[in-house]
């Protein structure tokens, strides 16, 4: 029997397959394709204290092997999430992780408090490149990563995952700051800041000018950051960035990730996470692995 269970900072998942925040809504749409209970965890769209309308359209642009998005954290707010979305997700036997973003440390703390232990873990989004507040500003300096993590941790009744930005000079020092401040796990990477210009209109394609790059194009950067971080921290790592096949997922596990999240690939293949899970199982059988943590570098 294969054992795919994995413990993410105190949260036990039945398998290491998660969905990446913002690519999966609140799970409703993909539940029409397969049973969400098959997933290790659903990470919901980034939540803010109050509802947000997000940025103007166009919000997406295609790039070589990637996409840029500038949704700008459109979401119904924490209250509406708890009232309308969480009950739906609770119909399934999967962990629910709330991704949260705020304008101030206080807002993050208020959200963590309000969510209490109604969700299974909180993912601190201090790396969204698409909003001025509540975003990447918190995520690129060690001291602010430390202080926001510390503050939220003190309000947090469930495991706290800190989601890091790849737009930094040294991912390791940022990850260590989060770990020192009490983070239970780290997830990386969020999107790389990018831009695309339409040479016919001679204007940026995105209404917001810049956006976040995701998809296969960023995978080598993500694998490198997971690997570097895994050498340095003791807490578990959730790896993501361009995963589009079980082979990609295994690459992240080899790099040192304890679990993986599927983002952009959901748009390409709605069965993505399920197919990847199956592929990992087959890889383990072929290699005679019984436990997930046998997938390590030689």
């Amino acid at each position, binding site marked *: 029997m294969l054992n795919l269970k994995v413990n993410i900072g105190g949260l036990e998942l039945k398998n290491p397959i998660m969905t990446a925040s913002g690519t999966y809504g609140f799970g409703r749409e993909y539940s029409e394709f397969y049973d969400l209970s098959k997933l290790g965890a659903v990470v919901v769209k980034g939540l803010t204290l109050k509802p947000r309308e997000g940025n103007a*359209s166009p*919000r997406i642009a295609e790039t070589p092997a990637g996409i840029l*998005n500038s949704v700008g954290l*459109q979401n119904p707010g924490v209250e509406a999430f708890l009232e309308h979305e969480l009950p739906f997700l609770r119909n399934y036997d999967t962990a629910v992780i709330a991704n949260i973003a705020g304008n101030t440390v206080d807002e993050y703390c208020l959200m963590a408090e309000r969510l209490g232990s109604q969700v299974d873990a909180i993912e601190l989004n201090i790396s969204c490149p698409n909003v001025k507040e509540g975003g990447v500003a918190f995520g690129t300096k060690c001291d602010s990563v430390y202080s926001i993590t510390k503050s939220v941790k003190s309000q947090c009744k469930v495991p706290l995952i800190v989601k890091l930005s790849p737009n930094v000079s040294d991912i390791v020092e940022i990850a260590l700051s989060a770990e020192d401040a009490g983070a239970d796990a780290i997830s990386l990477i969020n999107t790389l800041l990018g831009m695309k210009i339409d040479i016919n209109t001679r204007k940026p394609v995105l209404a917001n000018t810049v956006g976040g790059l995701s998809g*296969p194009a960023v995978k080598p950067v993500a694998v490198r950051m997971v690997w570097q971080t895994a050498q340095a921290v003791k807490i578990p790592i959730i790896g993501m960035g361009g995963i589009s096949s079980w082979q990609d997922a295994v690459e992240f596990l080899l790099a040192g990730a304890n679990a993986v999240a599927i983002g952009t690939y959901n748009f390409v293949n709605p069965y993505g996470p399920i197919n990847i899970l199956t592929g990992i199982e087959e890889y383990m059988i072929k290699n005679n692995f019984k436990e997930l943590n046998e997938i390590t570098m030689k």
Partner: protein
Amino acid sequence: MFSEKCEIISNEQLASKVYEMVLRTDNIARESEPGQFIHIRINGGLYPLLRRPISISRAKKEEGTITIVYHVIGQGTEEIAAMVKGEMLDVIGPLGKGFTLFEGKRCAVVGGGIGTAPLLELAHRLKNCDAYLGFKDEVYKLHEFQAVCQKTVVATENGSIGYKGFITELLEQNIKAYDVVYTCGPKPMMRRVADICMASNVECYVSMEERMGCGIGACLVCTCKVKGGDGGVHHTKVCKDGPVFNAKEVLLDA
């Protein structure tokens, strides 16, 4: 909503850069409503990465087929155009909210260019609507509209066929004849149609286009602006809450 690999029954050129493809799919043919679309994965790979949204132009339940009519714009549509009978196309559909149908109303469909395509299935369902079709120069699918519509008028910008000028000019002259107008085409055209309808108190439905990610409502990249009950402006999903909106509710400005 189905995710399927559908057999290509035919893929033929209708005009320069315009193609028509017939796909075998019992499920999508059975469930689709006029104005809905499918989301096409270009090939089995990741280049290009995103699916392409294309409206369903005809859905034949009995035959288990759907038809799409598409304009070749860039890499995605180029690759679709290069596919041949017998190959499989990976699609998700039917997607989105289509046109709202009313009983016993006098209806017109107003299409511009490739925007005429999704109005064909609608015209079939409406049975005796009038069709206003505008093109730049080349005209396609005219006979099918003529076969099913009460009246079909055509305008081309260069006057090669029908009226020389914009189709909206013909609509405006006849607007009093209708209770409901359905439109699909370039935004400036749809804006003009909406204004004409507004001025005469005619209900108007427009089919919006936005760049899409998931196509099913999960990623929020495809939003357009709608007026909320609260008087404010909200962002709503074209892929799920649209692509068809009541012209009174949606902002056609941008």
